[in-house]
């Protein structure tokens, strides 16, 4: 019963491991494209993820006392271009969870506010294509005192995270591939109880969270109007313990998830700066997480905040 849901990042890819990684903003913390200077892209997203089966350690099972556990997320996300090579992004999701069987109450609330700084460190023509090396730094912080003692329905892990992501993006004509690796530092979290058992007894309300890593590969078509990409993402905690048989899940479990995802973005012709995104992902392997499948979509609008308001086509900024 893992929390599988959380911060569904929409834009770019839900794919990401959403789950325990609240830091994910979407559109751009994980892709190789940037906003132009003084442009601000912002918009709402919604998504729904659900799972019926989950991995208890490596054992895959269902649970008639939970049925299907779902998380519905509404988020606001934004991306501002400080300049053409440096962007700042943010995201804030509201999440509501529910189990459709049994007697566990669903939880809901604002989850974690996340920020990313995205910087193109190097850009170079290689062959016929353009290679970009991008560095990102991220930080997320819970904005409410949401409940984490009962994992299957918790909306997040309530850990502050600091992330460093290294990314390479190669673009040739309208085709591209992006690969990135992320290291996530995760702060300790605090329970509502003063003792707990992991693989041993602890007399404290504080739980040490294992750090986590994420590897993301995406490949597809990218033009000024359409982005269509397929994505593979693997999230792993670096440590943590397995749920033992029929035991409760816990915030500091070892959680791994490998997901396949599809992301589509369409920049409209009829309103300058308006775009739509759609995402889908599914979990193909995991450990101590739900086997979630998620669908979502969003609408974004790009504002030109430059003082000298030239009315230019914002589309190829992106």
């Amino acid at each position, binding site marked *: 019963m893992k929390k599988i849901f959380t911060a569904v990042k929409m834009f770019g890819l839900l794919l990401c491991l959403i789950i325990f990684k609240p830091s994910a903003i979407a559109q751009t913390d994980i892709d190789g494209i940037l906003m132009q200077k003084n442009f601000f892209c912002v918009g709402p997203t919604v998504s729904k993820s659900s799972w019926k089966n989950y991995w208890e350690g490596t054992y895959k099972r269902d649970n008639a006392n939970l049925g299907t556990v779902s998380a519905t997320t509404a988020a606001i996300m934004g991306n501002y271009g400080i300049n053409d090579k440096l962007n700042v992004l943010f995201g804030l999701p509201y999440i509501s969870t529910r189990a459709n069987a049994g007697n*566990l109450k669903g939880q809901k609330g604002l989850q974690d506010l996340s920020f990313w700084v995205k*910087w193109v*460190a190097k850009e170079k023509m290689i062959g016929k294509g353009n290679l970009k090396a991008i560095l990102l730094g991220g930080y997320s912080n819970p904005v409410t005192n949401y409940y984490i003692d009962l994992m299957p329905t918790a909306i997040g892990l309530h850990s502050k995270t600091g992330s460093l992501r290294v990314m390479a993006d190669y673009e040739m004509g309208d085709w591209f591939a992006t690969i990135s690796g992320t290291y996530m530092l995760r*702060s300790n979290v605090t329970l*509502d109880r003063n*003792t707990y*058992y992991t693989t041993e007894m602890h*007399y404290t309300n504080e739980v040490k969270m294992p750090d986590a890593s994420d590897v993301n590969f995406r490949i597809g078509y990218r033009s000024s109007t359409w982005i269509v990409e397929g994505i593979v993402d693997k999230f792993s905690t670096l440590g943590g313990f397995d749920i033992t048989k029929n035991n409760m899940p816990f915030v500091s479990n070892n959680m791994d998830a490998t997901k396949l995802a599809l992301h589509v973005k369409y920049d409209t012709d009829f309103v300058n700066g308006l775009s739509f995104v759609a995402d889908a992902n599914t979990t193909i392997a995991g450990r101590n997480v739900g086997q979630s499948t998620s669908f979502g979509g969003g609408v974004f609008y790009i504002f030109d905040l430059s003082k000298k308001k030239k009315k230019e086509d914002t589309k190829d900024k992106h």
Partner: protein
Amino acid sequence: MKKIFAYIIVITVITVVSFNSCSKKIQEANADYPAINPTRNDANAGTWKPLLLASAGEFPCAAPIATSSPDYVLQLSEIKSFQNNITGGEQELVKYWGAGAVLRWNEIMRELVAKHNVPPYQNPDGTYPLPSANNPLAYPLFPFANPPYAARAYAYLSAAQYDACIACYYYKSLYNRAAPFTVDGTIQTLLPKSTLPSYPSEDAVVLGASEEILKLMFPGDQDFIDQKADEHKKARLIAGMNVRSDIDAGESLGRAIAAKFITRARGDRAGAAAGTQTQWTQFETDAMAKGEVPWYSQESPRRPPMLPLFSKVKTWLFDSLTMVTSIRPGPPPSTTSAQFKNETEEIYQIQKNLTREQKAIATFWSDGVGTYTPPGHWNYIAASEFVKLNFSEARWARNLALLNMSLMDAAVACWDTKFYYFNPRPMQMDTRIKTDIGLPNFPAYISGHSTFSGAASTVLGYIVPDKAQQFTDMANEASLSRMYGAIHFRSDCVVGLTTGNKVGSYAVSRGHTDGAE
């Protein structure tokens, strides 16, 4: 420009990294308990009233060798050799065990309870397997250390430790052999010096009794228990507190006394507490015959009720007739009554409007799957107070025995009530009601948490009168927490508390007459 931003990113990352690594260290509440250093050494504990022993000297303990004998000198050398080669890890062991034998073995049991407090997973056909003590490492692992099982385990541990201490102190006075640091001034003492004779060792008698009880209750964890016992013995030698013969004599005595408790445990009817399908059905038909809606398991697949015949287990503080006539409360509001309807609506409203603070209270006291259970929670509360009070080992054992006998008897009385009335849970009667904390799989009336808490707060208020009001407040909060969790009606909680208070008062009465006041 680029460089500036690079620096910003690097600095940010370094800040986050350093912030993170520092804040990840956790100071646990039991790590720095002070070394045991009794205000009163309770040298007369050999005269206290035992629970099962016919007399303090029922089990023999041979006279010790003289401190002038060559063998004793060799034993002193063993201590010195340890002390000359002490490692950091060994110093940690000395500090850990120095906090007290009764305390640490109580913690070890809490840990094993938490490890084993997991309900078995169902069979493919929807039935549930029963753990077997004869095959503890096969799935389902033995035991399922649920609250009644745990209450009984804590009680046997504390009771055996208590009688073992009485025998130990009796022989200490009888033989009056000096401690190694008194015999030889060159022995260092890494812990406060005890003013008691050191033969037999009180630590060893507690560990001998504890090992046996723990292995009875957690037969799959023998290696873990052995390892703890070895560390404990070593810590006493390294600390210069005991020579090898103090330890050996104490451990043997403790084990022999534990055997008497194990015999009691094998005959206390707990082995039959799971019941049979016929018995489970009988509860249902009995409730229906009274015109009441019977309890049904809300789990899927439906799980048989948790240890329904725990009500028949042999108690410590009163007999079964007293339990039925003086302790079992009157019936809950009838499931067809207006009051029952109102109490159900009350729970629906509470859970619907639950505040974050109420949810935290429900969670704090929940003590559900994967925890040391409510009796374990009250042991932790007791230990947290006792460490401040500089009790002797014998007094630690006596106080925890009073507490844990009351908790086990509270479990028996509570289970007796639950299965006598077989009353449903709120969510069985109103499916709109959901819980934040998990629903226990047994009838509602009376609340187990309330019964445990009523008993524990009564006993602890007797032992630590200055804190009596705080213990009462805790018990009230623990009781209320079950309504916040939407798993109990108000009647379950109110009557559970008063029933627990009654059980606790039997332990207090015993305390008045056990010779330790």
